[in-house]
């Protein structure tokens, strides 16, 4: 029997790992969206307090961040390896190629996983530089809530999303994340062994719904903030 580490380097292992990392990244997105939606809480300080609470976790937060970075990079690395292996497995491509339709899940979402994935990778780097390290801001805005000084993340977010180009950029990337998840959620289940023929169509539909909810949930934020600013809310 191969060792677990050897097993994870086979075609099965690669899929188990993309599947597991993909599921955890998706769960992270759910948590991230829930956190972001505190921006619209009736309490205007809710979002800042939430961010402050996370920072106060200290080492716990660092551990969570390290795990997240490892999951993310492992997922990206394996995704790119799968794509490279695909290129090697068919050195001479078809001159004419068509999907046969029927049960096939070849569509705009599944065919662009590597493209949407790489965009997500680049986006996340910029996004972290933007909102975690405030590299694109002239200064780090501070505020005092309940006598405690903390970063005014709400102001950072609102300032950014008053810029139409940032809003359009975020919206485009959120749509691409939706595409990644439309195929990704379903694919992860099959990679992890979902084999009940009655449940597979349900998983595909639910995957599509999760993709739309996450995508629309995230892109709602910049668009709403921009429109509120435009019409003086």
């Amino acid at each position, binding site marked *: 029997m191969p060792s677990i580490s050897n097993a994870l380097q*086979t*075609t099965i292992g690669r899929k188990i790992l993309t599947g597991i990392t993909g599921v955890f990244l998706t769960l992270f997105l759910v948590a991230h969206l829930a956190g972001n939606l505190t921006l619209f809480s009736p309490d205007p300080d809710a979002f800042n307090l939430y961010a402050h609470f996370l920072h106060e976790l200290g080492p716990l937060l660092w551990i969570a961040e390290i795990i997240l970075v490892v999951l993310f990079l492992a997922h990206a690395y394996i995704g790119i390896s799968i794509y490279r292996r*695909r290129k090697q*497995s068919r050195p001479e491509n078809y001159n004419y190629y068509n999907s*046969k339709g029927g049960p096939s*899940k*070849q569509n705009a979402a599944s065919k662009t996983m590597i493209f949407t994935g790489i965009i997500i990778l680049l986006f996340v780097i910029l996004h972290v530089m933007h909102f975690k390290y405030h590299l694109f801001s002239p200064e780090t805005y501070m505020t005092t809530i309940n006598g405690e000084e903390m970063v005014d993340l709400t102001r950072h977010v609102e300032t950014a999303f008053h810029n139409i180009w940032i809003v359009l950029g975020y919206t485009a990337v959120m749509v691409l994340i939706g595409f990644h998840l439309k195929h990704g959620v379903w694919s992860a289940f099959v990679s992890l062994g979902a084999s009940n023929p009655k449940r*597979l169509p349900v998983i595909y539909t639910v995957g599509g719904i999760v993709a739309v909810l996450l995508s629309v949930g995230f892109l709602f934020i910049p668009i709403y903030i921009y429109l509120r600013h435009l019409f003086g809310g």
Partner: protein
Amino acid sequence: MSNENMTIHLKVWRQKGPETKGFFEDHTMDDVNPHMSFLEMLDLLNEQLMEQRKEPIEFDHDCREGICGSCNLVINGMAHGPELRTAACQLHMRKFSDGDTITIEPWRARAFPMIKDLVVDRSAFDRIMAAGGYVSVKTGNAPDANAIPIPKHEADLAMDYATCIGCGACVASCPNSSASLFTGAKISQLAHLPQGAPERKKRAVAMVNQMEKEGFGDCSNFQECEAACPVGISITAIAEMRKEYMKAVLS
């Protein structure tokens, strides 16, 4: 359904051998009977080529009844042509229209090296089978039929996977050239039968390792293989293979 003969334009892949460059050769046939099978149409073309003292087109075929899995043709960009659950030998010219241009290419995958024209070497599948696609049997007298009870549900599942004819359409149609549907079908078929139990773990590992060694790609769950499969094997075979493999490794 018209019985009129059809005119068909063909773009057929010709390649002298593995080392030479291939190209598309154009042929027009004015006398294609709509009730001919696709392979009969190619037979007719080959007869015409031989009459003109030209080299006939090499293509693989044997049973011509959809059970041997040798008729590997990518027709109009689809493994075995446009009809679902149909091997190329069972495809009929009435599926096409008078005046159509039809492209024919070989299976394309690194693990299926080119031999000539439309014929490729699929012995990679034989090596995957040899690695573990068998069961141990007692020699001697034939055992009583039905001596081992198998629940109907399990027997049905095993039978569904056993319908794989090993044609390689899954590899040919897969954007990644993955052989997961083939290997998955073989592993899952035996995993559902008590006869497969003694080598169950060894089999999953050995067949997966051999598939990997042959240079097939990974499975991205496109499910194109299921669409191309002439017997419609479900990709549940692939999910089952993954479970079989991981169970074998973890136990």
